[in-house]
């Protein structure tokens, strides 16, 4: 029997754990998203300056938060996978990446949509938007390197090196872009910081942030499970080929 079974001891436990969490995270996602969207789009008042466009903020800001925190989470799990050779940690970094990239993309698109009424153009090289764009590139690079390797355990390590280097660089990039932005643009342009935080704004914002987090957890669980099953399938196929080879 040419299967290395010890690797799946951990994933099996992980699968049991996620099976228990999954219904809760799914329920929470629906609940928070429904109430968050209600508050954000209907219940909250218009902003005296931004009018209805302020509502884009409730979709935009939590997405930007998520994009950044998912990348940090990936860097942490990559480090864990590297140091303790934990197979689920590598897979979770891989599974989180597309979701993080989607949040990043969502933040970019909503940022552009907000920009049209506020700045009169869909894209302004605003420091936050630019940083988000660079973060999006980092996500693309991370996902591309997974695709580039045939050997999954090699891909995991290469991707881990990349995401850790990226995570070290993010503060430097952020600092540079902020600085570059203040150099090239006068402060009179409206920034995306939005209005002063008021409870009517804070409630939907936090609800949406919670909804995004729950949504991420739900998607994440599905994707990690798919990765684990995919891995098992590959090993089973390989064994089939080997056994056929032995018979023939």
């Amino acid at each position, binding site marked *: 029997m*040419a299967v*290395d079974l010890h690797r799946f001891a951990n994933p099996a436990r992980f699968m049991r754990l996620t099976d228990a969490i999954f219904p809760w995270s799914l329920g929470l996602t629906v609940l928070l998203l429904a109430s968050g969207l209600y508050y954000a789009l209907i219940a909250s008042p218009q902003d005296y300056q931004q009018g209805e466009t302020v509502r884009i903020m409730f979709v935009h800001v939590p997405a930007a938060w998520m994009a950044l925190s998912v990348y940090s989470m990936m860097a942490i799990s990559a480090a864990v996978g590297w140091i303790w050779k934990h197979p689920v940690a590598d897979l979770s970094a891989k599974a989180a990446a597309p979701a993080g990239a989607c949040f990043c993309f969502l933040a970019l698109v909503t940022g552009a949509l907000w920009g049209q009424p506020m700045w009169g153009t869909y894209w302004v090289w605003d420091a936050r938007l630019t940083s988000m764009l660079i973060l999006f590139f980092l996500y693309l690079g991370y996902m591309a390197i997974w695709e580039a390797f045939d*050997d*999954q*355990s090699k891909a995991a390590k290469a991707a881990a090196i990349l995401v850790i280097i990226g995570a070290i660089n993010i503060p430097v990039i952020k600092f540079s872009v902020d600085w570059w932005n203040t150099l090239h643009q006068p402060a009179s342009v409206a920034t995306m910081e939005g209005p002063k935080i008021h409870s009517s704004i804070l409630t939907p914002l936090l609800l949406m942030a919670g909804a995004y987090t729950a949504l991420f957890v739900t998607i994440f669980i599905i994707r990690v499970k798919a990765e684990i099953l995919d891995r098992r399938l590959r*090993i089973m196929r*390989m064994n089939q080929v*080997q056994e056929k080879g032995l018979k023939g």
Partner: protein
Amino acid sequence: MTLIADNLRCIRQDRVIFKGLGFTLGPGQGIWVKGKNGAGKSSLLRMIAGLLKPSKGTITWKDVDTQEEPESFRQDFRYIAHQDALKPVLSVRENIEFWAQYHGGDKVAGALKLFELEHLQDTPAQILSAGQKKRTNLARLVASPAPLWILDEPLSSLDTHYIDLFTDLLREHLEGGGLALLATHQTIDLQRVTIFDLDNLKGVV
């Protein structure tokens, strides 16, 4: 001065190449690794050389785990791989000289003489024949001597004259108390060499 491999396991792309592999190699001894294509001969040699991490098991040299102290182990072996590691724009002498100095040796002239490369020493490596490249590659063993030789197909592309020449060199190395780990398809006429068959290893734990 003993090399001990214990319970080595090699996994490539989720496929187990070999497992439960172990041997002990003492001074004056050689091991001839045999096996079909894909049995893991090169993988085993690369694993001993520290290029491939074993998924399980240990390699001990002079009672020290080689993974814990790779630098001191690396000083004690020379690894000859399939590829020649020659730079086409450098001459034969420059190629040998670089690797000799990199590994801390200086017996370049002796190596050139032994492998009958003296008349080619200023020739750029790009116009050498396959056999001449192989000899330039093997010359490293002499130019920067080390007790343990790890040889992956050292005889390929050599004609009978040089096969004999290299066999003599290997015999001398072993008689002088050296160690050798060798993988080759050709037959090699040597005493002091134990055959280690990777094909009959499966199932042995």
